[in-house]
């Protein structure tokens, strides 16, 4: 990590982080499914101060046509940050970072979506980051799974996202913006809790083999917590009238 110099105390003597959390605590996550009229499926997620809107279109015809596959449907993902989502205005054109994140999120969702059911079609997932505060790829992935489920697309599991990392020499869960900038490591994880498979994993920063194991351990724990909130969002939408599942 950058290890940028800062005056912020990342972890005080009582083990409390700069935003008041304990080391193994996630930020507050709220998800609402079905927030857009035109999209086939959608979700709005707040992951701490991250605010992300996801819309899913499809399965639908593929344009350009040469991208279509006779054996399977294809998944296309776009992760995009609004110019006003960060401190200094971001150029609205897709950056190399956004291209890469779109690709890793696509590869994190593919194992969950049963694309073989829809040959020659595309499912498009658009993730718009309206406000960013560290951990946007995990938050966008989390919202995208809910939006795909909301669109009624057959899935093997939901993918839940949560990062682990290291700041002030401690292993921490759900790295926020300050910890990302001034901390020592960031390890975003995407996890399918029922299938027990990790589908998104990146790391920047130095971890000993032991810390690496701990990060994966608590990261999966964080994903399991996020998973419960994902399920609740879908239940709230589809059983809102008081029916029980």
């Amino acid at each position, binding site marked *: 990590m950058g290890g940028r110099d800062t005056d912020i105390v990342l972890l005080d003597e009582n083990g409390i982080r700069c935003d008041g959390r304990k080391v193994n605590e996630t930020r507050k996550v709220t998800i609402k499914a079905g927030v857009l009229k035109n999209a086939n499926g959608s979700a709005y997620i707040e992951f701490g101060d991250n605010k992300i809107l996801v819309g899913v279109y499809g399965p639908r015809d593929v344009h350009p046509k040469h991208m279509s596959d006779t054996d399977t449907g294809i998944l296309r993902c776009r992760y995009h940050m609004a110019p006003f989502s960060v401190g200094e205005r971001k150029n609205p054109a897709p950056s190399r970072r956004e291209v890469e994140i779109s690709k890793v999120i696509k590869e994190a969702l593919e194992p969950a979506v049963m694309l073989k059911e829809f040959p020659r079609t595309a499912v498009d997932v658009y993730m718009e980051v309206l406000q960013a505060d560290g951990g946007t790829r995990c938050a966008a992935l989390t919202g995208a799974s809910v939006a795909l489920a909301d669109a009624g697309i057959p899935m093997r599991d939901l993918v839940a996202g949560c990062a682990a990392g290291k700041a002030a020499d401690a292993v921490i869960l759900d790295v926020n913006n300050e910890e990302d900038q001034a901390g020592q490591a960031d390890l975003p994880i995407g996890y399918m809790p029922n299938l*027990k498979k990790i589908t998104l*994993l990146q790391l*920047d920063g130095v971890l000993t083999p032991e810390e690496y194991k701990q990060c*994966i351990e608590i990261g999966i724990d964080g994903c399991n917590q996020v998973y419960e909130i994902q399920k609740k969002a879908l239940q709230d939408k589809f059983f809102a009238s008081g029916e029980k599942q």
Partner: protein
Amino acid sequence: MSDGLIIDQLKKNQILDLLKEGKRVDGRQFDEPRKLTIDIGVIPKAEGSARARLGDTEVVAGVKVQPERPFPDTGDKGMLICTAEILPIAHPSAETGPPQPPVVELARVTDRGIRESGMLDMKQLVLEKDKSVIGVFCDNAVTDHDGNLFDACSYASTAAINACKIPKYEMQDEKPVKIEGEFTEPPITTLPVSVTMAKIGDFIVVDPTIEEWGIMDARITITSNSDGNVVALQKGGSDGFTQEELIKCAELSVKVGSKIREIIKQSK
């Protein structure tokens, strides 16, 4: 990269059948990388350079060093940027034009491995704080593609940066002026080495060839440093890994990486 390569289901079945017997298509062990050769100083005009051949995959890395204006928030550190491109001579599927997502990923993963390891002590690359710093640019050109470009670029970059010479500069009237013929050694703190593993069915193999790359279910690239710590990681491909697999992969990467690091050290 793999997206353009069509290898039919028969090929996949054949590779999987072999793996079940404990064999790989080219006869290697599961944890055995291809033969790595590194030649340094292949581009004398560059301040550092290396040609890495990993089996039939070939990458030329060149390091240029020049004074730069620092970014406003990092005026007390030098600058380090790694890039990678696949030249159209490297493979029939390689295209000219703006880089496609797999190439952007290759460049960013290569950069991350070097950067996050802290290979260069950037604080030693400052000419005058907030005014002028030394920029180290390591550009990788893939000239022949036989799979696993991530590792080939990692080895070429590490070898080229490790062997580079930093020209001496003097500040005159707030401008850096090069002192001809004088060089210093780069402030190397560690040698990062990536190891990419492909998951094919339930098998994990190190350093996939282009055939294995085309049919793999998922891959993971783990970069470790000289102390045996993990410094960068990237999962790719359309399947996932279990927790146990990830721990095994990290151990494998550190083990295989330490042998590769020796080859890079000896190349200097």
